[in-house]
Structure formats: structure tokens, C-alpha cells
């Protein structure tokens, strides 16, 4: 792999005291500019794997090669500092003299130009996610780690944020690893979808999404149906809220 890729090799990851590992014999590589979605039922270790990639969890057996620089990270919850304004939340992760201008620009790009001075408590859930997205993009990362960033949002809000994500990913060509349990979301966004499952969890299927962009929802739905027809057990137990 080239130096700018993200290469995960997890021989075993177990929680302290557990007899069976959560993840075992798992290999996953994402090349620069590639958008990979990680799909699997809850409890399959998707978020754990993302934590390993981010370097938040170092207690595992294996090896991880990371692209240079800090990753832009978006968590399931926005994780904004409640005592800072939207602007200061983004500035917090920036370095250099023009940090304020960069933070302003990214918040404006997310449609938050009017809300710079507001604290997270004064923003709607969707706006908080947009601040979190702005924060991740503002550091101009070579790689992005997204952990179900659009979960528990209204469908139109989530669709808007997905469009924003795609737009800025295409502009920056950062490497993206997105964790989601929604197959439609994965197929609409990613170049490749990696399915996790089993106990301990491993890669069930590494699927290249051949759909041209932009992808119409109908085409995505058809692709999902074809995929599930070919691999009936792919999402066992994970399609509850499709």
C-alpha cells in the first residue's frame, strides 16, 4: 500500500474479560480518494473498528497504517463543546493564523453563516451535525472517519447532509471510511461497500458499487435489491429500519 492509504489489519480485538474476540482476521484497505462504507448489524464491531482506525483504542492485536495528518472525524453524536459557539467549536481543531477565516468559510459552506455565534444548545440537531461536518472538513484532512453521522435525523435533513458530504468529498478527494447500518445510504455514497458480520466479526463481502454518479434513489434501491437477492444472508438482522 502507498503511504497515504488507510490499511487496517486486525488479528484480534477482544474486550477485557471476553473469551471470544469481537473482531478477528480482519483486513481492510482504503486508497487515497476512495469512499468506503462499512455495513453490518449493530454489535458487529463497526464502530469499534473505526475507533481503532482513529487511534482512540490501541488495545488490540494487529497493525494499522494511517494516512499522514489528523483524520477529520464525525461521531454518532455531534460531540460539540456546549460552552463554545459554532465558530469556536470549529476553530478549536484548527491551527495557524487564518483559522477564523477557514472556520467561517466552512460553516458558511454548510449553510451556517448566520449561526456562527450560537452555542450548540441553541442549534437544532441537524445544524449541530453540520457544525460537526464543518469541523471535520475544516482541518483539510487527507482522511475522514464517519461513524453513522446521519443517524436519528429526519429523512430530508439526512438527505441534505449526505448531499453536502458528497459535494465536499468530491471537491477535496479525501479518503473516507463511513460506518452505517443503512444499506441504501452506503450504496448511495460509497465506491465500495464492505459488509461485516459473524462472530467474531470479519469481512463477509467486499462489494464495488458500479453505479455512476450522481445516483438516483431508484437506481440505488434497485441495486440494493439485486445485491440482497444474490447474497440473502448479507444483512441478517440488520434491515429492521432499512
Amino acid at each position, binding site marked *: 500500500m502507498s503511504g497515504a492509504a488507510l490499511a487496517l489489519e486486525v488479528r484480534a480485538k477482544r474486550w477485557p474479560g471476553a473469551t471470544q474476540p469481537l473482531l478477528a482476521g480482519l483486513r481492510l484497505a482504503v486508497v487515497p480518494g476512495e469512499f468506503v462504507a462499512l455495513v453490518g448489524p449493530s454489535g458487529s464491531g463497526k464502530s469499534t473498528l473505526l475507533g481503532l482506525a482513529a*487511534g*482512540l483504542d490501541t488495545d488490540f492485536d494487529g497493525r494499522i497504517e494511517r494516512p499522514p495528518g*489528523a483524520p477529520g472525524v464525525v*461521531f454518532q453524536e455531534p*460531540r460539540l*463543546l*456546549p460552552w463554545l459557539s459554532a465558530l469556536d467549536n470549529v476553530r478549536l481543531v484548527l491551527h495557524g493564523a487564518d483559522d477564523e477565516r477557514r472556520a467561517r468559510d466552512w460553516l458558511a459552506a454548510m449553510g451556517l453563516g448566520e449561526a456562527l455565534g450560537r452555542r450548540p444548545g441553541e442549534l437544532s440537531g441537524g445544524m449541530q451535525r453540520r457544525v460537526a461536518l464543518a*469541523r471535520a472538513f475544516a482541518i483539510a484532512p487527507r482522511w475522514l472517519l464517519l461513524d453513522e453521522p446521519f443517524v436519528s435525523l429526519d429523512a430530508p435533513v439526512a438527505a441534505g447532509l449526505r448531499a453536502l458530504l458528497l459535494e465536499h468529498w468530491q471537491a477535496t478527494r479525501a479518503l473516507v471510511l463511513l460506518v452505517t447500518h443503512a444499506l441504501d445510504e452506503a450504496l448511495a455514497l460509497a465506491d465500495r461497500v464492505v459488509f461485516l458480520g459473524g462472530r467474531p466479526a470479519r469481512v463477509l463481502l467486499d462489494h464495488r458499487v458500479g453505479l455512476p454518479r450522481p445516483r438516483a434513489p431508484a437506481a440505488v434501491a434497485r441495486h440494493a435489491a439485486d445485491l440482497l437477492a444474490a447474497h440473502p444472508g448479507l444483512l441478517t438482522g440488520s434491515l429492521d429500519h432499512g
Partner: protein
Amino acid sequence: MPPVAAIDRALRPLSLLALLLLWQLAASAAPAATLPPPLAVGARLWVYTASGELPYHLGVTLARVAASFALALTLGTALGIALGAWPRLDRCCDAWLVVGLNIPALVTVILCYLWFGLNDVAAVLAVALNKIPTVVVTVREGARAADRALLDMARAFRLPRLRTFARVYLPQLYPYVFAAARGGLALIWKIVLVVELLGRSSGVGYQLSLLFQLFDIAGILAYTLAFAGVVLVVEGALLRPLERRLLGWRR
């Protein structure tokens, strides 16, 4: 200003006025030597102030309060953070803390004077030692409650350690540090006077001990009044605005 806010704003001065009125009523019922009326005490306050005696002793006491307060809050916060962060250290120090919390102030004061002599260092140290354990316990609570999710965010973005500490971690402790500061100030005001009474020849506590020997109730009340005024000013002009600035986001 909406009328409700105006009433809220007037409540504090009004309640103080009511206290004064109550005092006047009680004074008119009691003999003048036992409970002098507010005006007599006010006159005395004026005499003490004009002679420069009261400003001097009040200033000395305030300096001791400030020094003990700063020492107790700094050391207590640092220790509280350490104990909250390292559970093993916490288990080691827990028994000490319980002892520290329960030793009577008088014991610490007497021991400090015996060990370090009748000087200001011993006085300030004695007051601080009395306060440190409660600061530690309060701040430790905050350190234990620190939001791991936010700290993980800072780590994922690879923020420098100092920035994570100052901008992500410390602000989470402010509510606890403030609680400790308020309770601390209340305790320190009281102990400083005892310390002065026992081993210093200046300060409000020392003056009160002299007036006690002379059975001078008007003098005692004059000093008390000045002292209470300072407490209210410090609380209203320093602590509250600072709290509003740092913790305003919680509303």
C-alpha cells in the same frame, strides 16, 4: 427592563433594608448597651473609618483571605484533578481526605502556630489547610464526571495536550471549581477571624478580641457591618459576574 426583572433586581436591596429595620425594632426594645441601634453603630463605623483604623485592619484581613483562598483553590483544584484522573491515587488518599475534612479548624490553627510560629505564613497556611480538603472533594467529583466523549473527540483530532486540557477538559470543571470557590470563601471568611484572634496582632479578628475584652458591642457590630459589606461586594461584584461569564452557556 420588564417589570418582573425590575422586581427581581430590587429584591436584594429590599431584603437588606428589611434586616436593618428589624434591627432597629429590636434595638428599641433592648437596652442600648446590649443592642445599639443601627445609627449608633453607623456613627462608630464612621469614627473608625476616619481614624484609618478600620481600613487598615480590614485590609490586612482581606489580604489574608485572598492569600488563603488562592492557595486553597489552586492546590485543591490540582489535587482534585489528580485524584479524579487516577483512581489508584484516589484510593490511597481517601483516608487522608476523610481525616482532613473532619479535623476541627481550631486544631489546624493551633498546630500551625506551634510549628511555624506566630506569623502570617502560619496563619495563611492554617486557613488554607482547613479549606483544601473540601475543594479537593468537590473538584474530584467534577473530574470523575468529565465527558469522555469530548476528550475522545479531542484525541481523534489530535489536539495538542495543552489545548485539550485548557479548552476541552478544564471548562468541564468550572461549575465544580465555582461551587468550591463559593463555599470556600464562606468558610475562609470565618476561619481567618479565628486565626487572627488566636495569634495575630492585626486584622478584624484581632480588633474583635480587643473589643470583646472591653464589652464594646457597638464596636463589634461596627466591624461586623464593615465585614459583611465587603463580603457582599466581593460576592456581587466579583464572583457572580465571573460565574455568569464562564457558566452562562448552561442556561
